[in-house]
């Protein structure tokens, strides 16, 4: 790559840039990861808008139940544990993908998937329970903001689970090719970023909501 850059550009030795780390275009893996990182940051900016809406509307319960009456912190602790452990399992899958170990990659991805599904099951049950108790998204501005924010994260986890299964199938069928490795790098970034957003949700929505 650096040969191409030198051939088409000015001679780097003449302008003193040869030691400045200019070796031509970066590898495809770095560019893909960087682009996906930019997407993740834009996703985080979108979540910050939902967080802002939630923070503003938190007290507007319209005479309905407040967070302190609705939230079950034991469920939230289990959800948090599931998501954190699945993030760790995804890290193990990254290590396995790097050393191209099919067996441990599939095991770690399966664990990641099961923990993600467990998280989704608990969240779904919580939502169904709230709606059954008459505290659905149409009850008050507070509950609308709550369902939008937490539901948006849940939708991300659902899509991430589909992506996870796709990656398992692709690695199984095509092996650790360079393009598959890049896709997996993006998936791992996505999964870890979802856990970061969950940290904000359980702190701001659940813990602060039931402390207030």
């Amino acid at each position: 790559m650096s040969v191409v850059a030198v051939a088409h550009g000015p001679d780097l030795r003449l302008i003193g840039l040869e030691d400045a780390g200019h070796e031509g275009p970066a590898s495809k893996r770095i560019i893909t990861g960087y682009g996906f990182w930019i997407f993740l940051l834009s996703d985080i900016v979108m979540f910050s808008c939902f967080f802002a809406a939630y923070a503003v509307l938190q007290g507007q319960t319209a005479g309905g139940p407040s967070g302190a009456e609705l939230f079950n912190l034991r469920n939230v602790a289990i959800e948090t544990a599931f998501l954190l452990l699945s993030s760790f399992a995804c890290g193990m899958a990254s290590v396995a993908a790097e050393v191209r170990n099919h067996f441990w990659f599939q095991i770690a991805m399966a664990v990641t998937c099961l923990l993600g599904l467990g998280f989704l099951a608990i969240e779904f049950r919580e939502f169904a329970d709230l709606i059954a108790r008459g505290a659905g998204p149409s009850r008050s501005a507070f509950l609308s903001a709550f369902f939008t924010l937490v539901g948006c994260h849940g939708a991300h986890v659902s899509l991430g689970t589909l992506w996870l299964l796709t990656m398992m199938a692709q690695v199984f069928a095509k092996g650790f090719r360079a393009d598959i490795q890049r896709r997996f790098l993006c998936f791992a970034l996505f999964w870890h970023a979802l856990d970061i957003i969950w940290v904000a949700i359980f702190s701001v929505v659940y813990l602060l909501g039931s402390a207030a």
Partner: protein
Amino acid sequence: MSDIHGSPNQADLAPGEDEVVSVKLRVFGYLVGLGLAILLTATSFFVAGTNLVWQPSIPVAIIVLAIAQMGVHLVFFLHITTGPDNTNNVLALAFGLLIVFLVIGGSLWIMSNLNHNMMPMDQIMQMQR
């Protein structure tokens, strides 16, 4: 090809990528991250439900613990570090954080100002009569 990583000429790293080290060391890195995250989460949940600390400090403590845990996730799981090979990733993160703080801080500031200056709702209702 350019996809071979760990070549001595490499000046940049993708986010989520670490320098080439042994499997044991990489697993150990994730384990350290997991341990710190569990510690911070447990403290957070403990602080939220306890009477042992001064009550008004609880929201601040929860937010500080959350920010610390996000930092742990960034460093140990996403491998965003301060190294020279990570400059682009860190700059993008810094810009993202700027927008996040503007959106959240700005919304809270403006809305609390409006709440403060607006007449209580029952008085508005009486004026319309």
